[in-house]
């Protein structure tokens, strides 16, 4: 169907190799729509990231004075359990005598505690396999045992047996005094 003459020339010029003004308008409109669609997706995706109130969660202070030797306490930091353990001299000696080549995630005990505060082990109590909380004082290595899939950690929180790939992570923390630490 041919309505008018101008339409005819339009149709003809579309058949040639040379881009027409209409091609340009289609391209420009598609580009604007594409950029607009991507821009519109950003707020939706970003709205699911941690919001300002979650990011504002600061640090946790822990009083160490009431922890007995050989005992582990669990405190909450950023929604996760933090294990604070006062180790016995036996435990320290045991984990320091291990040959690093035997470990799946080789790390010496010295790297995992603060110098001069070897008694204190502070780890994030989340199994590096699939995120369960290991049980204190259980397992084959006098440390932790994860009930979910059977990972064993020693009393330095290092992975010794089971499917977990890495040692229990160490959170950022510092000693405020002899009896107080700040996590975060």
């Amino acid at each position, binding site marked *: 169907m041919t309505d008018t003459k101008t339409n005819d020339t339009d149709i003809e010029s579309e058949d040639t190799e040379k881009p027409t003004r209409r091609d340009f308008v289609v391209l420009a409109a598609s580009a604007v729509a594409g950029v607009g669609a991507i821009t519109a997706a950003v707020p939706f995706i970003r709205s699911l990231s941690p919001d*300002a109130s979650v990011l504002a969660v600061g640090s946790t202070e822990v009083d160490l004075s009431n922890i007995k030797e050989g005992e582990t306490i669990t405190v909450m930091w950023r929604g996760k359990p933090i294990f604070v353990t006062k180790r016995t001299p036996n435990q320290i000696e045991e984990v320091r005598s291990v040959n690093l080549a035997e470990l799946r995630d080789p790390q010496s005990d010295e790297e995992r505690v603060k110098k001069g505060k070897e008694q204190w082990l502070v780890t994030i109590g989340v199994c590096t396999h699939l995120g369960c909380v290991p049980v204190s004082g259980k397992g084959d290595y006098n440390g932790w045992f994860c009930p979910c899939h059977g990972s064993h950690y020693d009393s330095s929180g290092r992975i010794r047996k089971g499917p977990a790939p890495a040692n229990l992570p160490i959170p950022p923390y510092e000693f405020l005094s002899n009896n107080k630490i700040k996590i975060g």
Partner: protein
Amino acid sequence: MKSDSSMDKNSPIDRVIEWIEYRLPIFSFLKHFSEYRTPKNLNYLWNLGSIAGIILIIQILTGLFLAMQYTPHVKMAFDSVENIMRNVNYGWLIRYTHAVGASMFFAAIYLHIAKALFYGSYKSPRELLWFLGIIIFIVMMATAFMGYVLPWGQMSFWGAKVITNLFSAIPVFGEDIVIWLWGGFSVDNPTLNRFFALHFLLPFLIVATVMIHLVALHKHGSNNPTGVQVKTEYDTIPFHPYYTVKDFFGFGVFFLIFFGFVFFSPNSLGHPDNYIPANPLVTPPHIVPEWYFLPFYEILRSIPDKLGGVIAMFGAIVILFLLPWLDGSKIRSANYRPLFRIFTLIFIINFIVLGYIGGMPPEEPYISVGQFCTTWYFLYLFVILPIISRKEKLKDLPKSISATFK
């Protein structure tokens, strides 16, 4: 594989398409859309359906992301909305888009309905298409009402109280029904909790009804500004690319208005009192519904009787179901019905005046004007329309749609 169909289709993609098509006719369904033929004289009022469709999608999308951050509990609802505004990344944008979106949805739907009234789109053979539209409108109002309750501000609470109390006007069972709706002896946490669940559900009922609306539309095709049925191919053009491009242009204009409000005046369509947390002991001095409910609110208020007001308000919507028969004219478009054209425009203006009066305090002269407009609303539909549509002298209809193109 069928022997007759695989003759000249040798590419692997064609074979996959054919394999699927034989089992699930999705490609012929898509073909229907690309080849769907549409009257070639549609004006911009025919853009409103697709605009309503895109706003429905926007409401569902923003609503989904709001529901991920909102807490439907009386102690936390208001604060969780403020958390969305202040802390959630782009939460302010998503909430304002959802809130302004509701207004835009109703603006588009009112224009969509006005178009149908003016061009007789409700007349045979499109009565069921019209019915489905009214059902969508009713579910939309229920959805918007329940959504407005969720932030649990003053207007939310008192709106919920007033609207649920409409059912207390029902004789004998009224009070029991209201207690059942509330889940208690007043609007409280059980009410908020169930409104959240229903506000999430109803949009999907709207989507389903819109699908049926489209099935009914595609059966006989769109009406057009002449109201003359399509007679030959020359009256039509394929929907794609002609009306897809026109719809995209409509989206562009619509988004400019929509996001003009969202970014530059997001609260101008709302009520400031909804930024005050709900207080069951104090009703705000000037309680009004959202603007898109005002005409019906005014009809309710104009009748000085509880049950009568409720019946009039619901009747004002339900009467629209009778429109295809109240209008006895043989032709559709108001462009060829001089009297009907004037009265339809007056009817639309009357409806706007009803909305304006609904936003005014209940005092003179607003009470009298409101009652006059309410009377006119029903008088027109029940008496004037049936008479003029059967008696009036019609203008000559064009022979066909293409005959109007010189």
